[in-house]
């Protein structure tokens, strides 16, 4: 069975390539910082499964120090010239889109076909990790196709990938760091404490008040934790089940489904959900790190209000 381990090795080699090419970039005044950062990340992917918890912790701490104290820089890498890109775009035409679309197409193929494929009695791919493994396969296939059609220098993918990676910079590890922080919060019992706070502070004698506190609480707690999955068990155990379902007789499926989606409204507005909000801002080279969050704010507020009304109207029929 193919697990995540070979995917991690693949990613580790790519990050190691970013580190090496970063080291060669004389236009970047902090190139050693960049090389050390991507090198540490490469080490985590290549050896993390064998390093042990303490070494992994020191490694993560190293990433925090390098990124946190501004030791990463950006070179004046000559982003390809616009005129050249236009000529090339005209030359290759729609063939350029093919490798880009291979990645989602492989994801589709993985979900529909590879997921159910068995060799003997075991699955070909780890059924829990199909989407990530398919992504890696898609990248490998797309890379092969692009190299075959475009015939660039062999080092071009790593050079161009590094340029994009350096544009994202330390924000690249933010999602993984925040998820790890979530694990520490869980260890410390943050969820229970917030749940206790929410129920003690607010009198909940009418269904509408309880529905509002549950929905808004899901959103706020998701903003804090960065993840609705962390908020759901806490808020539902504290308010959803005892009050909405047991006391006021709400339909548990309605309460739970709309409650979770209220949490997603919080995901839209929190920097803690860095992979959805902060990384795209870096990836799209927005001047404001919170640019995506600001655009999503009105939708999140209106949708949270809509969720509250929907739950009130639909759960107690």
């Amino acid at each position, binding site marked *: 069975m193919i697990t995540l381990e070979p995917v991690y090795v693949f990613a580790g080699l790519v990050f190691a390539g970013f580190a090496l090419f970063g080291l060669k970039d004389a236009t970047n005044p902090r190139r050693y910082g960049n090389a050390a950062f991507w090198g540490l990340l490469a080490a985590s992917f290549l050896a993390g499964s064998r390093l042990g*918890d*303490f070494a992994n912790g020191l490694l993560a701490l190293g990433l*925090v120090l390098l990124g946190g104290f501004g030791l990463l820089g950006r070179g004046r890498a000559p982003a390809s010239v616009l005129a050249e890109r236009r000529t090339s775009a005209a030359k290759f035409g729609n063939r350029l889109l093919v490798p880009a679309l291979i990645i989602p197409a492989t*994801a*589709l193929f993985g979900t529909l076909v590879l997921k159910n494929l068995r060799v003997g009695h075991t699955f070909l791919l780890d059924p829990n990790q199909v989407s990530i493994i398919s992504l890696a396969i898609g990248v490998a296939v797309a890379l092969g196709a692009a190299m075959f059609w475009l015939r660039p220098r062999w080092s071009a993918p790593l050079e161009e990938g590094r340029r994009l990676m350096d544009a994202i910079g330390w924000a690249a590890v933010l999602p993984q760091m925040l998820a790890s922080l979530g694990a520490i919060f869980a260890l410390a019992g943050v969820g229970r404490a917030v749940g206790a706070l929410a129920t003690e502070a607010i009198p909940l004698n009418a269904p509408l008040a309880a529905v509002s506190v549950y929905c808004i609480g899901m959103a706020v707690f998701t903003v804090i934790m960065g993840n609705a999955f962390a908020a759901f068990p806490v808020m539902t155990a504290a308010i959803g089940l005892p009050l909405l379902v047991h006391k006021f007789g709400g339909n548990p*499926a309605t309460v739970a489904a709309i409650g979770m989606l209220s949490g997603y409204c919080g995901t839209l507005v929190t920097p803690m959900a860095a992979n959805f909000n902060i990384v795209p801002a870096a990836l799209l080279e927005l001047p404001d790190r919170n640019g995506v969050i600001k655009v999503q704010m009105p939708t999140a507020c209106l949708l949270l209000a809509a*969720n509250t009304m929907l739950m009130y109207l639909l759960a107690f029929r």
Partner: protein
Amino acid sequence: MWTLTGVAVLAIGFALRLNPLLAIAAAVAASGLAAHLSPYAIVCAFGRAFNQNRFISIVFLVLPVIGLLERAGLQERARTLIGHVRVASAGRLLLLYMLLRQLTASVGLTSLGGHAQMVRPLIAPMAEAAAEKRMGALDDAVRAGIRAHAAAADNVGVFFGEDIFIAMGSILLIKGFLDQSGIVVQPIALSLWSIPTAIAAIVIHGARLLLFDARLARAQSASREAAHDHA
């Protein structure tokens, strides 16, 4: 209440616009100490969690492919393509993308899309090109607004589509939690009760996207006038 020290540290760190990595490290230390863990145990717990969450960073594997294609003119090609579509506008294009993203997510295909794979190389350049076609050269603020909306369309689409699929992680999490609490619900019921919110998301964000074109035109002419006054 000491348990919540870590949350407070994180909130203060974000509010002071401290580097988020440092804020996270401080919050980890505060939470761990509040839970009476030794510094060694805190480093171990964080290292274990960081290692287990490596799958989150796998998405950056796409960067070499995307970078290579961008150098060969992928964004320019995407722009040219959308230039041929007469009725295209930034808002309508993003609305279409959001609907497709939501529809595919609702049948479980959440990996068709994403910021690195679709938004940066294809969707954002197409939306910019559609706006350029109507308004001429864009100024930087308007361009940033279009890009931010492209990322938002992806997020809103996938968030409020995925729970309609019965085998989605969140649906299974809900079912597992309710099972433990002695309440049996069918996953299909949870999926069906996700549909009203999905429709509300289409109505709310869709309306915003349709109004976005008019807002863009106003922002562009306002900044033109400002530039004019300045000159």
